[in-house]
C-alpha cells in the first residue's frame, strides 16, 4: 500500500476529467433529464474559479458537467487561509479574542462567544447574569444581521436584486446598534473572558426596541416580496434536496439540518449562557429543499427578534463582567485609589491571566450551525492550541450531494442557500 503522503498531487486531479459515463452511481437527489443521458456521454470539466460572482468568498469548484446537468463537484478551498489558529498560540488569551473573531466574519460575536466559553470553562469562572443577558441580546442581533446579509447576497445570486439593497439597509441599522454599544461596527471586541467589555450606554435599549418593532414590519415586507413570487418558487422549490440521514452522516448542523426536519438546536438542546430563560420556537422544515432553507432562516429571524425583546425586558442588574480581578480588568476609577487594582491591571495588560492546564470543547449555535471552540491550556498565559470547529467547513461537504444530478442553475441556488462563509472554512 503506497504511502498516501507520497503520491504526487497531479495524479489525484485526474479523477475529474473527460471520461465515459458508464458507471455513474444514481444519486438520490432529484435527477433531471436522466433519460437523455445515453446520448451525450461527454463530460466537461469547468472551473468555477476562486473569483466568481456567485461564490460567497473565494471558493473554487471543479464541476463536471454533462450538458447542463452537474455530475461531480470538487470544492477546493484554502484561498483565504490565514493561519489564525497558529497566530493565536502566540498571543495572550484576551488578545486571541480579536483573532478568533475574524474567522467567521459575519457572525463575529459567535466566534468570540465560543472562545470565551471555552476559556471560562477552563478557568472555572462564573459569568454574571447581566453579562449573560447582554451576550444573548448581542448574539441574537448578530444572528439577524447575518441572516440579512445572507438573504441580500443569496437573492442577488438568484436574481432578486432588490433584496440586496433592503438587506444591506437593515443590516446597517443593526451595525449602528453595535456601534452604539461597543464603538465598532464589525469585529467589536465586546465579549471578554468573564463577561462583556463595558455596560450598554443609556439610550441603547430604546434604540433596540425601535429596531425590533421596525424589523418585524420589514420582515413582512420581504416575505411579501419573495414568498409568493413565481420565479423565486420555481428556482427554489424541490432543488438541492438532501435527506436528513445523509446530512447527519455528513455532520451538517444549523438551518440546513432544521430544514430537513431535524429540530436540533443547541440553544434548546444544551442551553448555555441562560438561553433557557427565554421562550422561542425552533422552525423546522419538511422537505429539505432550498425553499425550506430560506423559510427556516426567515422564521429564525423572527424568533431572534422575540429573544431580543425578552432579553431587554428581563435584563438583570449587576456587574457586567466577573469581579475576579485576576481575569478581568478593574474599572478605571479604582486605579486611582487601590494599589491592588493597579497591580492587577498591570499584570493583566502585560502578561495576561494564566489558565490551569486542561483542554475543553465549547459549542455554540451560530447562524450556520454548530460552532465549537477547542482550547488547550498548558498553564501559561498563552493558549497552546485554539481550534474552531467551523460549521461552514463541515457543511461544505454537503455541497456535492446538493448539486449532483441537478442543473447548474439550481446548483448556484444551492450554494446561495448553503450560506458558506469562506473565512470560517479556511480559517
Amino acid at each position, binding site marked *: 500500500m503506497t504511502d498516501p503522503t507520497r503520491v504526487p498531487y497531479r495524479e489525484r486531479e485526474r479523477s475529474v476529467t473527460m471520461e465515459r459515463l458508464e458507471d455513474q452511481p444514481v444519486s438520490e437527489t432529484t435527477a433531471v433529464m436522466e433519460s437523455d443521458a445515453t446520448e451525450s456521454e461527454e463530460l466537461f470539466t469547468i472551473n468555477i*474559479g*476562486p*473569483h*466568481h*460572482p456567485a461564490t460567497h*468568498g*473565494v471558493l473554487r469548484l471543479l464541476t463536471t458537467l454533462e450538458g447542463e446537468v452537474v455530475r461531480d463537484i470538487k470544492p477546493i478551498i*484554502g*484561498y*483565504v*487561509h*490565514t*493561519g*489564525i489558529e*497558529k*497566530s493565536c498560540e502566540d498571543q495572550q488569551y484576551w488578545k486571541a479574542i*480579536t*483573532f478568533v473573531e*475574524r474567522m467567521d*466574519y*459575519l457572525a463575529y460575536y459567535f466566534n468570540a462567544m465560543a472562545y470565551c466559553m471555552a476559556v471560562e470553562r477552563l478557568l472555572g469562572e462564573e459569568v454574571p447574569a447581566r453579562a449573560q443577558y447582554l451576550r444573548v441580546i448581542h448574539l441574537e442581533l448578530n444572528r439577524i444581521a447575518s441572516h440579512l*446579509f445572507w438573504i*441580500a*447576497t443569496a437573492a442577488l445570486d438568484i436574481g432578486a436584486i432588490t433584496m*440586496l*439593497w433592503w438587506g*444591506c*439597509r437593515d*443590516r*446597517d441599522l443593526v451595525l449602528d446598534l453595535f456601534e452604539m454599544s461597543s464603538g465598532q*461596527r*464589525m*469585529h467589536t471586541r465586546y465579549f471578554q473572558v468573564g463577561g462583556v467589555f463595558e455596560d450598554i450606554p443609556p439610550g441603547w435599549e430604546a434604540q433596540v426596541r425601535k429596531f425590533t418593532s421596525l424589523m418585524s414590519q420589514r420582515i413582512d415586507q420581504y416575505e411579501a416580496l419573495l414568498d409568493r413570487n413565481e420565479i423565486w418558487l420555481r428556482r427554489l422549490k424541490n432543488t438541492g434536496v438532501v435527506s436528513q440521514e445523509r446530512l447527519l452522516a455528513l455532520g451538517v448542523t444549523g438551518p440546513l439540518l432544521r430544514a430537513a426536519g431535524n429540530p436540533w438546536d443547541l440553544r434548546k438542546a444544551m442551553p448555555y449562557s441562560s438561553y433557557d430563560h427565554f421562550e422561542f420556537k425552533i422552525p423546522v422544515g419538511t422537505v429539505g429543499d432550498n425553499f425550506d432553507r430560506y423559510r427556516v432562516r426567515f422564521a429564525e429571524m423572527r424568533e431572534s427578534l422575540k429573544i431580543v425583546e425578552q432579553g431587554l425586558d428581563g435584563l438583570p442588574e449587576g456587574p457586567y463582567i466577573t469581579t475576579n480581578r485576576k481575569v478581568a480588568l478593574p474599572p478605571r476609577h479604582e486605579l486611582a485609589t487601590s494599589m491592588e487594582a493597579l497591580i492587577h491591571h498591570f499584570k493583566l495588560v502585560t502578561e495576561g491571566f494564566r489558565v490551569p492546564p486542561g483542554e475543553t470543547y465549547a459549542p455554540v449555535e451560530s447562524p450556520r450551525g454548530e460552532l465549537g471552540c477547542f482550547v488547550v491550556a498548558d498553564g501559561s498565559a498563552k493558549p497552546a492550541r485554539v481550534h474552531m470547529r467551523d460549521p461552514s467547513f463541515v457543511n461544505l461537504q454537503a455541497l456535492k450531494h446538493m448539486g449532483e444530478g441537478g442543473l447548474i442553475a439550481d446548483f448556484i441556488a444551492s450554494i446561495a442557500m448553503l450560506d458558506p462563509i*469562506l*473565512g470560517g472554512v*479556511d480559517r
Partner: protein
Amino acid sequence: MLRGQLEGKDLEEYVQERVLLTRLEEAQNWARKNALWPLGFGLACCAIEMITVIGSPRNDLSRFGAEVIRFSPRQADMLILSGRVSIKMAPVIRRIYEQMLEPKWVISMGACASSAGMFNNYALVAGADKFLPVDVYVPGCPPRPEALMYGIIKLQDLIQNNQGQGWRERYNAEGTEEIA
C-alpha cells in the same frame, strides 16, 4: 527643444498645442474619474464593508460614478482588494490584475491588504504591494464605509491631477494585459 529656447511664433504654437492637449487631458481625466467601475473582488471581512459601500442605500457609491460592478476583469477599471491575501490566492490576483485593461487602478482596502494586518504569519503575503501596484491604501479593520468612500474620492483626485505614475515601471505593470 526646451521650452525656454522657443520664442515668438514657435512659442505661441508650442503653448497652443499644449493647452489644447492639457484641456483634452483634463476632460479625459474627468470622464475617467467619474466612471470608475469597480471589479467585484471580495476576499474576507473587508468585502462585507465593500458590499455595504456599493450596495447599501446609505453609503451609495453610484453617486460617484461607480454604478456598475462588473465581475469580469475585462470590463472593470478599479480593483478594490478587500481582505487578506493568502499565498494561495496571490497568483490568482496577479493574473486577474493582468487581465484588466489599461487604465486601471488598485485600492488596497483594509489592514490585511495593505500590510499583513494583524496576521503576521506564514500564510499571508504581507501586503498586496508586494506584487501589485497600489494607488490608494485605506486603513482600518475593517474600514468604515465612509473611509472607503474617502479613499475612492482620493483616487478620483489622483486621476484628475494625473500624478506621476512612473512607479508603474518599477512594478513592470505596463503592457501586461493578457490577450488570449
